[in-house]
């Protein structure tokens, strides 16, 4: 596959390491609450098995070491969008 890196242009997927769904961005922040155990359990283990457009995290290990959010169709491998994970994470309200 070819991943069109937002900073570096098209790169072979061999240069990347795959992690998984962008669900991993939503790490719960309510760790002090008793009930957060369930939230962390959901965060760590529960994933949708999507047949279609899937937002997923890739790491450009053999390149600039940026984490990317790649929107890839799991049926066709078509890649519709590639963003810096940092930007996506901020847009989702994460900061410090």
């Amino acid at each position, binding site marked *: *596959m*070819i991943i069109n890196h937002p900073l570096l242009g098209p790169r*072979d997927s061999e240069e990347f*390491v795959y*992690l998984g769904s962008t669900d*991993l*961005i939503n*790490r*719960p*922040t309510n*760790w*002090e609450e008793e009930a*957060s*155990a369930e939230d*962390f*359990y959901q*965060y*760590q283990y529960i994933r949708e098995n999507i047949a279609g457009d899937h937002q997923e*995290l890739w*790491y450009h*290990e053999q390149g600039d*070491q*940026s*984490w990317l959010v790649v929107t890839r169709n799991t049926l*066709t*491998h*078509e*890649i519709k969008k590639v963003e*810096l*994970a*940092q930007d996506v*994470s*901020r847009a989702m309200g*994460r*900061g*410090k």
Partner: protein
Amino acid sequence: MSQTHRKEGGLIDQDKTLTFTFNGQILRGYEGDTLASALLANNKRLVGRSFKYHRPRGIVTVGSEEPNAIMEIGSGAHKEPNTRATVTQLYNGLEANSQNHRGPLGFDLMAITDFFSPMLSAGFYYKTFMWPKAFWEKIYEPAIRNSAGLGILSKEPDPDTYDKGFRYCDILIIGTGASGLSAALTAASSGAKVILADEDFLMGGRLNSGTAKVNDIKGSEWAKSAVEKLSAMDNVTLMSDTTIFGVYDHGIYGALENRSSESRADSKKPRQVNWRIYAKRSILCAGAIERSIAFGNNDRPGIMLAGAVRAYINRFAVATGNKVSVYTNNDDGWQTAKDLRSKGVKVVAVIDSRSISPVMGIQGAEIFMGTDVVDTKGRRALKSIKLSNGKSIDTDSLAVSGGWNPNLHLTCHHRGIPKWNEEIASFIPDESTPPGMSVAGRAKGTMALSDAMKEGHDLGASVASDLGYEAADLKAASTPSVAYHVVANWGVPSGKNRAWVDFQNDVTAKDVRLANQEGFKSVEHVKRYTTLGMATDQGKTANVLGIGIMAENMGQTMEETGTTIFRPPYSPVAVGAFAGRRRGMEFYPTRYTPSHKWSEEQGAVFVEVGMWYRSQWFPQPGETHWRQSVDREVLKTRASVGICDVTTLGKIDIKGSDVSEFLNKVYVNAFAKLPVGKTRYGLMLREDGMAMDDGTTARLAEDHFVMTTTTANAVSVYRHLQFCHQVLWPDLDVHMISVTEQYAQYAVAGPNSRNLLQKIVDPEHDISNEAFPFMGAGAITVCGGIPARLFRISFSGELAYEIAVPTRYGDALMRAMMEAGEEFDVVPYGTEALGVMRIEKGHAAGPELNGQTSAHDLGMGGMVSGKKDFIGYKLGQREELLRNDRMQMVGFKPVNKDDLVEKGHSMAGSHLLGLREEATTHNDQGWISSSIYSPMLGCYIGLGFIKDGLNRKGEFVRAVDLVRNSDIEVEICSPHFYDPEGGRLRV
């Protein structure tokens, strides 16, 4: 022996004679021959035995679709089995041997399997050999494996070299026949970057096999001039003898280039190059592949596809027989008869299953319309055929054409499903071709040559135009329009005689019908039950025929029946081509530590640790066993001072105003208040609460930290930290970079370590115990101004330091320290002594951080902060992970100190059992994860995991090793065997 079947002309050089051997017999051919054409020229018709029934078989095709003529080429380590003779270019000295027979090819002892054929029909594996059960593994399976099969491996390392390469283009054109060359001419005229690939060593496709005229010259001449024109263009790369074997995502194509002739002349040159071609668009012009007709005994040597017979006479000037007959269901078969006649070969009969008027007259041949071939005779070569009208005809070569199937293999690589086309009675590609791929010519089902060339011509221009290039206004090549008419003929009832569909896997028409009868109604199920199309040729000549028989048998249409699809590779690719240069020591990069050269000079023994080579121990004169070296290194280090290269530990340089907060989020213990000039041990968990890695982090300045990781996890911890920063907490002011390779780092351990270092540390840096206490860290200079970092940390349990200098000074520092240490009798130590000392101190390492152990299990539960959120906190608090009856890490020492000493092996891998319990899985209480002989304690000791271990110190259990046959009594103890109070660290 002379080439009895060779004629004049052809696209070969009859002035250049080549000598080769077949089954030891010396034969001759010409430059430009394939092994198959040279064998036919020498009247070698029987060339192999079939896979299952050991039937005599001959050459059937002229290309990579060949099911029968697969051979062992070369000898010794160079031997390559299962090579198709039809695509092997002939060279001087080629050694070919037929395969899959016992005894001589002409009298195969295994041919007896043919008589048992009723037992070996479709699904025989599932039906026979079922009883008695125990016989399967010992008798049936080995016997079947021995009798059925392909060639035999040399079982020696492949002496050839393989390479990989990368190419980029706008348009990749696959196939260089009439449509491919037409597409290339227009595409290239636009200035677009074009790559042209063909599996044949001679470009031109079927133009080279026929007699059709293009622009009023011979088709092969036109092809030659087109290739010349293209090769003169800077924007065109021609790759002949190159098979596009796979279509991968986003315009990536796998291409295997054969360079055997170069590598034979110079063994350092690659035999094959595995190219990865990145193409914006591709044009598939792979032509069509002929299929057979299923009639009785249609597999005898001498029965070939009509297009192949035509190619042998036209391109290779080889007559496949002296009395040839043709059996066809389409117009194209007649062309073979016509070409043979014009070359002076006797054609005895043309049999056409269609009830129409003869397509043309063939001089000297009997013509039978609406007639079929129903049986053949001739044990090792064809002698006669029997027709449906009862007539027998003497013939030594039967050219069969059941029609042409578009070669749409590559269009299926992204699960494209071909659709049925009634007009050409075959499947054609539909819209589901891989993105970026367009198809032209016969591969698309455009059977008439003139139409195929026009299609290629137009497509070359339009694809270039899609990419923003404009093709020159070229005129399409002209060729007489010849219609193609076909009426599907899947075969005729053959009674007792078997009619073969898949030659390579020995599947008959009866097998297909039997599968239907037994309830296999889906084409995918029939394929797997009968193994139709599952041989190395992927059924290129067989599949459509098999599907036709199935449709007919089930009384349904071809659309209803559907088709199986193809997958990469198009034709077999040697594993060596995928490995490329990555073999042996080149499997991955070899990384040496900065002290490697010095260590070599000392005669060190090296060990692979992850990607690194590290010194394992340093043998001294007189030492005959590794234990002597290791024990000495430990004792001398603990008595005075030792040095170990620890460069391989991961080092991550981290800067920014929020680093301490960041570290708080990734380590279980608190880092926020770590003062400048101090270092701290830290444990990292995965989010699921399991230990991930450990190491130390030093604070060199308010906003500057250096982290160390284990050697094994250097890369993954860095990746994890980048994830935590970029994905989870993007606004923290944190910047990091891996500096593992930028710093050489040495552990200097032992009571005299400070005395040694004081001799090389520049005098303005005070490293006394008061000024630089335990867990101190800081930037210093050594040897007169060389920048260094000093950390007072200890893995050995002694007064110890780790000192880091820029890598380029690593070798010099090792030599300087060894010289400075001479007065203290300094000793270098390797990874074994390092391991001994860490186990004596009870430090967990790889065998303990195995991905299943929590902080609590490792005895580090007390370190876990409850006052902050960090990766792994919440899930690490799950009740199950905090239970005491989990496996917990403790120490183990033998009750009898001499145990195992004589046997000379440690307790590593032993299982822990109660004193009087039987060694069963049920009674298993845990295991020893790390164990060594401790020269300090004078016995073997171990770290290990046992249920509720932390509460069981002082209890006795057994360490049982069933592999090495030892069973000893051990005491559960603290893992801190040596200096548990840590007094030696702080002096």
